[in-house]
């Protein structure tokens, strides 16, 4: 089934043994950290043990904030609310049933399940088609405020403003809590580390980077964001459970918006997107605060606030940024990412019945207010066709492409892909019908490597492992051809942002092709490319459609290119389809010449 490609294989073998070593490193580090923390209470005074227990619980929260904000790009103040709900759930149940095995189990289960449920609701509310990152932040502000007010109004249940105290707790000494918190922190951090290093972790970064591209790769950004919010709400609830037991008191402030902002401050100072930075930052700041704020409470807050403002403006990567740079400058730190071996994957046996059109557009019309952009468009495109869409400025070409790839665009008339009407379908579902769209400005994931971008393009077919990086990258032959012809197969580990403009265009094309679409939509695929790059893209497109299974529609202004590759040309003028024929029929048509000289008016 897998036909491996020797050259790429050989390139990938060398770093593999080394990568096995680096894969074990996090586990070794986690075990060492656990051991160190296990014996640490022996060397610390009671005050330090108490404070650090709390700090480590907060650090668990910082990890969740970092995953959301630093990796997935969702600035959240809401983790405090989930933490508070978990803490209160634990306190209320332990208070009612005592620290019996059943009581503890029920408390733990509720402390995790209740925040998860709330997280699901919050996620559903925050993320929807065309929601903005700002809206998610707004919701994350409202949630802790609502939770706090509910706690205030909870009367005897929640202890109102004085909180709950005196409930039964786990039968541990303070050292025991310290060790428990340490183990949970190490475990959560390790799990987060494994997640962000895995293929699924790349999807988080991809979401932050370019949500539209994710959707046009057939991934459902909303589902991922909601899932992440729910899961991390559960983790925050677990931290709340620990906190309630370790401190023996829960108060409304634990769920409040102010605590939510503190978490963000710790993560920012430690270094968002680094996991270890927020963990160390949180522990250091909280510990320092406990020691210093007794003596100079206001000055401490002032310093912290000033440092926070300065870090946000001058060092957005936090204190981990210079440390990380130093580390990478050392020989030990310079471990490159191993390139996955490329492998050809047999194309799915999509039995394309040649008679039925892949794309059928009937009476398509679209207007913005009183301005009509498209009117009465009828179009059928069959497998094997390479259709160029041309026309003067403002003819409606890009609008047509947008309607084809996004069913939530308000339009009249009908568009069907392989017989399925697309009205109301979000882009990711249209991708599921077999449509791939290449944007005019190359839309790739700037902070990922070439291989990661391609892996995400395959995610809707092959899934993504949340545990590891797959050692091979299976792509359809056509995508491999694009990579080979453009030399990208030798640049698999290169970060996308370092690619040239032409290489980015080629990468995006390879990603779209890797989706194994039946219909490829390309908006000015050659814009800004050199002559040689245009030729390459042209041959790729011709080869793709020549197989008779795929159709392509492109908007293009480079007429030599259009003439060379098209099997058919469709001319749009002032929102109407005025001509549809072979290259010979359209090129040199008097009507077309009149349109381009500016003479024709509808």
């Amino acid at each position, binding site marked *: 089934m897998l036909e491996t490609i020797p050259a790429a294989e050989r390139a990938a073998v060398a770093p593999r043994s080394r990568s096995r070593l680096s894969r074990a490193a996090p586990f070794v580090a986690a075990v060492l950290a656990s051991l160190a923390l296990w014996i640490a209470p022996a060397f610390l005074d009671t005050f330090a043990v108490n404070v650090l227990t709390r700090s480590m619980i907060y650090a668990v929260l910082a990890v969740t904030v970092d995953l959301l904000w630093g990796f997935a790009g969702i600035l959240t103040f809401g983790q405090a609310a989930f933490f508070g709900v978990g803490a209160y759930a634990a306190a209320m149940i332990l208070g009612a049933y005592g620290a019996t095995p059943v009581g503890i189990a029920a408390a733990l289960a509720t402390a995790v399940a209740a925040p998860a449920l709330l997280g699901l609701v919050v996620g559903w509310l925050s993320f929807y088609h065309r929601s903005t990152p700002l809206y998610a932040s707004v919701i994350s502000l409202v949630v802790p405020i609502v939770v706090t007010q509910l706690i205030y109004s909870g009367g005897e249940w929640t202890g109102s403003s004085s909180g709950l105290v005196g409930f039964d707790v786990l039968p541990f000494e303070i050292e025991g809590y310290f060790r428990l918190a340490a183990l949970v922190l190490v475990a959560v951090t390790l799990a987060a580390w494994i997640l962000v290093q895995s293929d699924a972790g790349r999807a988080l970064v991809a979401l932050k980077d370019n949500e539209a591209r994710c959707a046009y790769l057939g991934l459902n950004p909303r589902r991922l964001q909601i899932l992440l919010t729910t899961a991390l709400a559960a983790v925050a609830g677990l931290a709340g459970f620990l906190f309630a037991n370790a401190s023996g008191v829960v108060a409304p402030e634990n769920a409040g918006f102010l605590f939510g902002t503190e978490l963000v401050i710790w993560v920012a100072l430690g270094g968002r997107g680094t996991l270890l930075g927020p963990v160390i930052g949180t522990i250091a700041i909280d510990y320092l605060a406990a020691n210093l704020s007794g003596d100079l409470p206001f000055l401490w807050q002032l310093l912290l606030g000033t440092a926070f403002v300065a870090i946000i403006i001058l060092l957005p990567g936090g204190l981990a940024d210079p440390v990380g740079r130093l580390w990478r400058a050392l020989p030990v730190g310079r471990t490159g990412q191993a390139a996955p071996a490329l492998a050809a994957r047999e194309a799915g046996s999509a039995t394309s019945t040649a008679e039925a059109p892949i794309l059928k557009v009937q009476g398509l019309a679209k207007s913005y207010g009183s301005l009509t952009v498209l009117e009465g468009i009828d179009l059928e495109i069959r497998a094997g066709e390479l259709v160029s869409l041309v026309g*003067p400025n*403002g003819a409606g070409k890009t609008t047509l492409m947008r309607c084809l790839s996004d069913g939530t665009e308000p339009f009249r008339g009908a568009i069907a892909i392989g017989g399925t009407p697309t009205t109301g379908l979000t882009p990711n579902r249209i991708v599921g019908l077999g449509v791939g769209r290449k944007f005019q400005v190359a839309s790739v994931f700037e902070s990922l490597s070439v291989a990661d971008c391609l892996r995400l393009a395959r995610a809707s077919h092959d899934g993504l492992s949340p545990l590891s990086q797959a050692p091979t990258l299976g792509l359809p032959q056509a995508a491999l051809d694009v990579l080979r012809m453009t030399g990208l197969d030798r640049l698999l580990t290169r970060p996308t942002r370092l690619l040239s*403009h032409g290489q980015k265009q080629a990468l995006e094309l390879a990603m779209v092709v890797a989706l194994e679409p039946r219909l490829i939509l390309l908006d000015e695929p050659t814009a*800004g490319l050199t002559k040689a790059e245009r030729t390459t893209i042209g041959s790729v497109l011709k080869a793709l459609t020549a197989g008779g299974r795929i159709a392509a529609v492109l908007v293009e*202004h*480079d007429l030599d290119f259009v003439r060379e590759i098209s099997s058919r040309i469709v001319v749009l003028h*002032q929102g109407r389809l005025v001509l549809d024929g072979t290259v010979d029929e359209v090129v040199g048509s008097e009507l077309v010449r009149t349109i*381009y*000289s*500016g003479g024709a008016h509808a």
Partner: protein
Amino acid sequence: MPEAARRSEPVGAALALDDVSSGYGAISIVKGVTLSVGQGEIVALLGKNGMGKTTLLKTVLGMVALRGGGITIGGQALSGLSPAKLVALGVGYAPQEQPLFQDLSIRDNLRLAVPSDRMLPGALERLFGHFPFLKERLGQRAGTLSGGEQKMLILGRALMLRPRLLLIDEISEGIQPSMVERLRKVLLAERDAGLSMLVVEQHVAFALGLADRYAVLKLGEIVDSGSAKASDARERVIDHLAV
């Protein structure tokens, strides 16, 4: 200084581009364009969408960073001049994309184009000289004007500050032939009064009828140029433009 410069006799070309390159981010759009507009001359810059015409204008205006080569206006080198300075130097601009504040009144649109309210009455007088119909409609929202009327407002706004060099981006786009003819007359009258123009167009007939010289831009490079009055100019340009 700008005032003095405007009064003294200009030196050299109204606009000279020497091997100019520019673009956005990783993309280079304009690649080594050399082009000049003489005093009182109209040069038409033709080419299809995405070939770099608008980017070229924006480079002259300092809205897109110059990456290579040099630009002079009336002999003065442009580098790091703010749009406000360019206005003071006598550079007018009639943009194509979102050229008006649709929700503001016509008067407010014009007010925003003059450096101070004191200069507004004189500027309006010149505007009404070209387009008298605007006089009755100053209070109307700019968005309620028809497409052709909007183009006249855009052109009138650029002309009312008495520029010495006018950069025009697709002024004929999407409007009726009678309107196009009206714009042509205004522009030719201004040309005869000494105004120099660089006119970006896709409407070949209009551009060649207006201009003294033409140049065709393709993928950021000039691939053809010559006298607009040459008998084969139209055929040559359309060969570059049409399918």
